[in-house]
């Protein structure tokens, strides 16, 4: 019996030893590898995509939101009648049948045909039960107002890793806030593939993007878009841009430029259209710059509205050049108010000379000329100003009437806004508030940047600009019954070292109603062909928009 007992004991010991060795091999030697294989079988990393924040106009309407769309794909290996399928898909997807046919001839199991396909189109394709055709749900950016304020909004494209990324405008500037953060969770599945509730591990929480609430008023934006587009066609301009701002807060109420693009289909347009010219393009402002220089001279106490110009009886010679008026008409001893009414270049040379280079630069800096305004849009440019020791007498003279100096349209709008706002220059702001996913609204406060001129000077200058608007070259277009301050501008375009007399930038800047300014607006037309003058092209657009804004705000005429 003893040997049997020992044999059994020894047998079981050997068996257990093998088991222990095997377990040691699995659980220690190959533990890491087996654990990874097992995890791959029952673990699944689920990515919770953060929803991109919306962009809303001041009336709460989403002008940029996420949209459900589909990627239509096919498995060419199961397609039997390729021509029939190519014809059907081509018709529904608005692609050439030959293009679809070429895709169906690729020797692969999965071939994408078209992305960003609407639900209605997807339903029509699905109803046809085409062999091999499938749909993959995707989220794309949706701009319900199409090209309205496109350059202000920017668009959403892809980064180098294929993730959504905002480019240009608000989408670019506020990309981090709009994007949010994706959440990652590990879900453990049972043998049937069902998730095991008790084993769900939410490692990081998804954080949706924040929503931007803009100062942009959709009604004013629509008015501006419509009138600017109409004006560009009517006056045969190559391009045009305009913006409306609340001078008291710096709130941008509307900003347009044409030609434009549809941000939903940005790939179909030239890259050059993505840039917002209102904040990036520099140009010589011409006579719309005169109110800035005149304000400086008034504020410095060098001149009064009724001060007379002693050099305005004819062309002014400076440094080998002759400064003429735009129409070669001269008004001896003209007053400063009349200098603005007649848009007299010789009068402005006198004003600039009274200021001198250092004082001129000091005021230009205070008005923000040459510097970025800080507007919350991607890509703002600052042309800069020459240092005082690089200014020649001719530079000082031409700066007086807005030639030989570069500005961006937003700089000029902001500077004129200071005149409308009792001398206080505000930071232009597009976004009024940021809304977090939990509904908390964080307002962005208006910011005063500087006070280039006193309130008294601003009021005097405002009255001079009202007289200019009512009695100047654009008086025919003015709004009767309203006090609107304004100034036309017709700037020559420098081409190869000289000014081309046939190519101009026509503009009009103004604000109103002057007793309580609700808007300051700048309209610019690039090379209008019907007339080269700002008074005959940009001014009518300005007044057409102003009229609609005043009606929209319910402001009655005051006389």
């Amino acid at each position: 019996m003893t040997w049997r007992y020992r044999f059994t004991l020894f047998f079981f010991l050997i068996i257990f030893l093998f088991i222990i060795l095997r377990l040691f091999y699995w659980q220690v030697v190959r533990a890491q590898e087996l654990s990874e294989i097992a995890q791959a079988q029952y673990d699944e990393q689920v990515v919770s995509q953060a929803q991109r924040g919306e962009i809303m106009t001041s009336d709460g309407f989403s002008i940029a939101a996420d949209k459900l769309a589909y990627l239509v794909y096919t498995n060419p290996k199961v397609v039997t009648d390729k021509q029939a399928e190519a014809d059907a898909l081509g018709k529904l997807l608005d692609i050439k049948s030959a293009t679809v046919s070429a895709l169906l001839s690729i020797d692969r199991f999965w071939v994408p045909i078209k992305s960003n396909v609407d639900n209605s189109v997807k339903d029509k394709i699905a109803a046809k039960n085409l062999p091999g055709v499938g749909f993959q749900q995707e989220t794309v950016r949706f701009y319900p107002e199409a090209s309205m304020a496109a350059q202000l909004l920017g668009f959403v494209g892809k980064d180098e890793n294929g993730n959504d990324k905002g480019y240009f405008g608000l989408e670019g500037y506020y990309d981090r806030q709009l994007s949010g953060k994706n959440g990652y969770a590990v879900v453990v599945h049972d043998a049937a593939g069902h998730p095991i509730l008790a084993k769900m591990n939410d490692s990081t929480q998804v954080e949706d993007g924040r929503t931007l609430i803009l100062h942009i008023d959709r009604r004013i934006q629509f008015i501006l878009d419509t009138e600017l587009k109409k004006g560009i066609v009517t006056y045969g301009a190559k391009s045009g841009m305009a913006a409306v701002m609340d001078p008291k807060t710096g709130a941008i109420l509307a900003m347009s430029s044409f030609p434009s693009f549809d941000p939903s289909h940005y790939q179909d347009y030239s890259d050059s259209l993505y840039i917002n010219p209102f904040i990036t393009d520099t140009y010589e402002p011409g006579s719309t710059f005169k109110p800035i220089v005149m304000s400086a001279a008034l504020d410095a106490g060098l001149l009064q509205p009724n001060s007379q110009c002693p050099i305005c009886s004819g062309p002014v010679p400076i440094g080998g050049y002759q400064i003429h008026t735009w129409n070669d008409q001269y008004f001896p001893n003209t007053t400063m108010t009349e200098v603005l009414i007649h848009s007299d270049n010789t009068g402005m040379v006198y004003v600039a000379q009274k200021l001198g280079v250092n004082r001129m630069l000091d005021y230009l800096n205070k008005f923000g000329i040459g510097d970025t305004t800080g507007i919350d849009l991607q890509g703002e440019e600052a042309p800069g100003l020459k240092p005082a020791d690089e200014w020649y007498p001719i530079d000082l003279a031409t700066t007086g009437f807005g030639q030989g100096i570069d500005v961006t349209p937003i700089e000029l709008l902001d500077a004129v806004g200071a005149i409308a706002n009792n001398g206080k220059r505000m930071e232009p702001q597009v976004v009024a508030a940021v809304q977090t996913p939990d509904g908390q609204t964080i307002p962005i406060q208006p910011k005063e940047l500087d006070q280039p001129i006193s309130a008294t000077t601003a009021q005097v200058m405002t009255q001079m600009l009202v007289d200019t608007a009512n009695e100047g070259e654009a008086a025919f277009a003015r709004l009767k019954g309203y006090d609107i301050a304004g100034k036309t501008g017709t700037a020559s375009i420098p081409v190869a070292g000289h000014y081309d007399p046939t190519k101009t930038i026509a503009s009009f800047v103004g604000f109103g109603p002057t007793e309580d300014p609700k808007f300051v607006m700048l309209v610019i037309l690039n090379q209008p062909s019907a007339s080269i003058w700002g008074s005959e092209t940009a001014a009518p657009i300005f007044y057409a928009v102003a009229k609609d804004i005043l009606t929209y705000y319910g402001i009655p005429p005051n006389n």
Partner: protein
Amino acid sequence: MKKPLLIIGFLGIVIVVLLVVRITLVNSISTTGIKLVDIQNQIGDYKRDNELLTQQYLSSAAYTTIAAKAEKMGYVPVSSEIDLSAPLPLALQ
């Protein structure tokens, strides 16, 4: 001999009770995964419907859409002075 029997008996009862509890618990939570999938599918459907309806609303309420439809229907912008004493013509074409 009585004590070991009692202990074995007690352990046996504990084992049986634990088995019953385990079977009951497993039975009750075995379908939660399936329910979870159902709920997630329902949430997905509602989200999809909601997004589609939002899209439809935004497309319909866009000024560009309204302006195009209004123009097609014959509405024209009033460019003359507005006389509040007379009714405004709405559709002129």
